[in-house]
């Protein structure tokens, strides 16, 4: 959790993702699509996204809802441990059941995917929106606008983000938790995007094609939307692909700590937290959400990493 974003790494490396280079050709994208690791990642993400989007239908198929108790699946004489081996895995409960109340783990995984993906994707969209807007503003306007935005970015990036997210989330009363998570995640993440975009905006403004457009009398808005923005799209796609897993991991971590998504709404991190007291007697209870969380984050990271390599090499791969 709190995975240090690759934007930080790139900063150290001295090369921005995408590097403002030409978008890769279809052949380069085809090359990474032939890598087994990318195929597996894409396949897994398709399954998880499918589960998330069609959650109500999927659970109708499996027979149990995420909030439904099944007392017949747990053994009250052992303190509520699931009946049967392997945490109560059966034709009825595909991934077993939770101890004590017997809620179906599969159904909770499916609905948890929904919550995790929704929060991560919204946070990514918001982060990119703020990051690109402010980054372009700083890069183009220069002067005091740049100075103010840059100071703000330095300030936010000097923060121990996880601790501050915990502080903000624990201080704010209930309300709409997913929305709050999206806001807090974006608040501490946009500077990384903005910094890269700012650097690229500054270098692109001085390139020949922009100067040519300017010389031929293009307005400011035309310059930004027709000439510069399309050239930033590679960077934004790569950064967004790498931001999604960071947000999924951070949301799960915050929910694990009890300041994220509030029960009974399931979230993977929160499921692992609920499994902590049972880890010795019912290991599948933490293993199932843990493995889903890991594979989802891992798949997104592999995809982002490959996209980044393709863009950095300017379409050669």
């Amino acid at each position, binding site marked *: *959790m709190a995975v240090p974003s690759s934007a930080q790494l790139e900063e150290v490396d001295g090369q921005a993702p995408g590097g403002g280079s030409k978008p890769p050709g279809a052949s380069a994208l085809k090359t990474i699509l032939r890598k087994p690791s990318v195929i597996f990642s894409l396949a897994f993400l398709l399954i998880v996204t499918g589960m998330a989007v069609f959650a109500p239908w999927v659970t109708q198929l499996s027979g149990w809802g995420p909030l439904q108790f099944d007392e017949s699946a747990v053994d009250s004489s052992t303190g509520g441990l699931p009946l049967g081996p392997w945490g109560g895995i059966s034709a009825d409960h595909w991934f077993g059941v939770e101890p004590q109340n017997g809620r179906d783990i599969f159904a909770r995984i499916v609905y948890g995917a929904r919550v995790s993906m929704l929060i991560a994707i919204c946070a990514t969209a918001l982060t990119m929106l703020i990051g690109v807007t402010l980054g372009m503003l700083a890069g183009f306007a220069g002067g005091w606008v740049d100075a103010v935005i840059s100071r703000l970015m330095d300030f936010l990036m000097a923060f*121990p983000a996880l601790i501050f997210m915990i*502080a903000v989330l624990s201080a704010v009363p209930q309300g709409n938790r997913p929305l709050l998570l999206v806001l807090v995640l974006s608040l501490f993440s946009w500077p990384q995007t903005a910094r890269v975009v700012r650097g690229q905006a500054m270098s692109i403004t001085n390139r020949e094609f922009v100067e040519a457009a300017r010389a031929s009398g293009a307005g400011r808005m035309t310059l930004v939307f027709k000439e510069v923005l399309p050239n930033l799209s590679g960077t934004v796609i790569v950064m967004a692909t790498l931001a999604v897993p960071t947000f999924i991991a951070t949301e799960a971590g915050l929910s694990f700590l009890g300041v994220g998504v509030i029960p009974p709404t399931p979230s993977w991190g929160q499921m692992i937290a609920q*499994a902590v007291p049972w880890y010795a007697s019912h290991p599948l209870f933490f293993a199932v959400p843990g493995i889903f969380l*890991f594979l989802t984050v891992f798949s997104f990271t592999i995809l982002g990493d490959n996209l980044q390599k393709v863009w950095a090499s300017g379409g050669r791969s």
Partner: protein
Amino acid sequence: MISYILKRLLGAVVTMLAVIFFTFIIFFYLTPDPAASICGDACTPDTIVQIRRQLGLEEPFFVQFWAFLSGIFVGRTYGEGTAAEIYCSAPCLGYSFQYRTDVFDGIVDRLPVTITIAVGAAVLWILSGVAAGVISAVKQGTWWDRGAMMFALAGVSLPNYFVALVLQYLLVVQLQWLPFPAVVGFTDDPTRWFQTYIMPWTVLALMYASMYARLTRTNMIDTLGENFMRTAHAKGLRPAPIMLRHGLRPSLTPVVTLLGMDFATLLGGALITETVFGLNGVGRWAYNAIGTNDQPVIMGVTLLAAFAVIIANIVVDLTYTALDPRVRESTK
């Protein structure tokens, strides 16, 4: 050089003040009734009234902020003139009414455990990360390289609380190779000490080593293509000293920068590992405080973490300046 240091220090002081202000706003504007949340769940109306008066919550915002800020430098007294007067001495980060303790003292008591976890993990991840990076760079394109880099991506993607649970389940419960973690002093029982801390170290190191491996690899590959590497080969030096002295050394400066930035996330990692392994450090205290809604503790730990990050960044900058002649030139 001296003016550069002064400039950095001034910048740090401004950032610290901004952090204090921001944290203060979070807790005293966003929380509906600070007295109620300070008081926690097990709380009577009488105690709430008492806390409200003690904190001077009827005062205007800036008066309260000044009381908090000056408390950090000269200490402060809660409930002055009342029977229940509480004095909080110089670095006063707040007072926990639930633990009935000065938050700063509470942090100092628990800091050794957290520092042991952090330093041990850092040693482990720097050694393993840099070693993996060097091997990958030297054997670039081989299965060694691909395997190490795939492992690095996996390491970044693994949630550390999940790894912690898996390790504890396998090594302690199933295989019984290790006893349950319990805090002991190094001098009291070195074996038990090692057995307790090896799991938290591994969990944190796994997460961070990946970044170091990737960074070392990239830098090392760049360095290996430099002219001075060819010169060293031409001079007839043996391959191993060339790699270590000429190849590795210039690749390490960015690693120092990364180490400084990682201080920002380390306390967060400590919070999770301490909680899962039940070690009583600063992170676990903060975790428990979240559960009981003990705001002064969360606020104190937040401020401490922010201070640590700001100081770490200055130390890294200055070390960097001392290490790298090019940076030294530019700061003159």
